[in-house]
């Protein structure tokens, strides 16, 4: 018993709920990657060990697995903190916003940078729970400022939208260049 106690104190760490879930996930990930090393990297016969293309993946994944195993051990030996699955749910909630981001990125080449950004800012502000005219106009205004700053002033490399092609001649060129 005393030996178990000392082992526990050695691995006791600062942690939050859900730590053990992360510990399992990262360990499974590193073991999976390590198992792929034969397929996914090459070994040139005759070459020096340190110059092998396999060397650094092997070192990093090997050590990653070791660290992950200890991390899991530490997590398993520490006192359980309630709220593990609630925490995991909050991780999953982030996927919704990742989806918003990807949808936004996917629609810019079609809808044009300015219209898509303004729409996205308003829609996401509504999703975030803002209903007041003040906040929504702030969202519109800020998104216009961002577009003007990056596309028109800094000339950052962003695609011009397909939608602009439908505009009349003079306006089309202007929108394609600046917005």
């Amino acid at each position, binding site marked *: 018993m005393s030996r178990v106690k000392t082992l526990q104190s050695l691995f006791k*760490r600062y942690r939050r709920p859900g730590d053990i879930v992360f510990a399992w996930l990262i360990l499974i990930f590193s073991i999976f990657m390590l198992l792929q090393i034969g397929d996914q990297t090459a070994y040139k016969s005759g070459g020096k060990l340190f110059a092998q293309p396999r060397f650094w993946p092997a070192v990093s994944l090997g*050590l990653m697995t070791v660290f992950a195993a200890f991390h899991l051990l530490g997590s398993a030996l520490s006192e359980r903190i309630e709220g593990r699955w609630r925490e995991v749910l909050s991780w999953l909630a982030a996927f919704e916003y*990742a989806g918003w*981001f990807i949808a936004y990125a996917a629609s810019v080449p079609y809808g044009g940078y300015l219209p898509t950004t303004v729409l996205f800012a308003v829609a996401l502000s509504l999703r975030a729970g803002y209903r007041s005219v003040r906040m929504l106009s702030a969202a519109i205004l800020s998104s216009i400022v961002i577009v003007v700053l*990056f596309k028109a002033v*800094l000339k950052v490399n962003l695609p011009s939208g397909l939608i602009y092609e439908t505009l009349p001649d003079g306006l089309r060129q202007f929108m394609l260049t600046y917005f």
Partner: protein
Amino acid sequence: MENLYAGLEMLARWDVVLALFVGSIGGVIIGAIPGVGPAVAIAILLPATFSLDPIVGLTMLLGIYGSSMYGGAIPAILINTPGTAVNALTSYDGYPMTQKGEGHRALSLAYSASFWGGIFGIGCLILLSPVLALIAPMFGSREIFLAALLGIILVVLAHRGQIFAAGVLAMFGIFLQTVGLDAVTYTQRYTFGYSFLSSGINLIVVVLGLFALSQAFFLLTAPDNVPDAKSVQGKMTSGIKELMKHKRVATVASAFGVVLGMIPGTGEFTAQFMSYTYAQKTSKNPELFGKGSPEGLIASEAANNAVPAAAMIPLLALGIPGEALTAMMLSVFYVHNVIPGPQLFQNNIDLVYGLYFALILLNVIVMIFLLFSTNLLTKIIRVPTRFLGVMILILSFVGVYSLRNSLTDCMISAAFGVLGLILKRLNLPIVPIILGMVLGGIMEIKLRSAMPRLKTPFDMIDRPISFILFAIIVLVLAVHLRTLIKEYRAQQGPEDHDLHDSQTR
């Protein structure tokens, strides 16, 4: 002397001056808003700076880096919410002072101490540069390899209480940079047959995901909150006089900042904790610490502001970044084909001096700006946090997409955003991943180029600098083991789960 003039000349351009103003004032504002730190801002602006001249882009990013901590002190002192992660200790003494009605005194002291630390750091950088120019050429491939290895070891060990997690993440970073086509043997590594993985995983895509997108997700999934800081009355210059009574604390704290800023992987946190402990131990009123001690405030602010200048030392002289922000700046150098390292001091010394002057100027600009606009800033920081999340998401898109107009990059970045959110919520560090990627790449290249000259493993350490570096590595590991054993024997009480509560900003 000629080079000094050349450096000054570099700054005497309207676009550089503009970048300096935008960077330093923008940095103060970004630092002052709880929820966005310099890492988010630099990650977003990084791709935009690639089209600018190196000196313009670098002064802007340097401005944000150097000035954000000034701004971060405002919410730390007034509402007990550090504006940037490194202002955490400032709130220990700053907020109790505000509660006692001394908010104005605390702020002016914080600014003065920050200025002291900032200028002290730059002074050391300037004084050290002749030495650096002398030592840097002695760094060959194996020395740089060992220095990068030391950086990795230190960044892992610096996360006390989370060493296994930091180790996992640092190794994950090293692994990430190996994905793609190997540059020497042209073999695929972990591409799983996908063509988009052949060119590797882009550092900036990862940085934007881990720092910017994750912050947006974090703010959007958390309850909405509006930081509410009250305005303060009084002259901001009064802090300078009071600082003069605590010159010793300010200087020692700045020195801690410089020394720890130079060492890769340690940075602001360790510097702050060490100087705070020093100030408390040598103070006449140690009982006041944590309850509104001006010395504690000075120690923490002087230490963290001395770091940016010092962090430039390994970056410029060896090309080795010591923390996430300088790692990001390294990519600006690379894009412009200016490779930091020993040759920089021989070929581009004017750029180096230009950066020094930019650092001095930015401290002066920020100080003057803050003396007049603190109350304005207390109004600006009242941005609701979810709204801030929406804005960060829109801005991150510019950063990721402008790199090479790739939707795949956006998806990879979003995936790293979710990973970053998990790490933030678990209070695990993000920096080891970034340093692992950058230092891992450096280690692989340098070890390969050192290979032909190595007959036996001992050749690795048969030169003075490489031997010293090796000795330091052994020493660091030994000291760490010793503290572990000591702590184990001492059997400490329950640990503070929030000691590293630093990842959420």
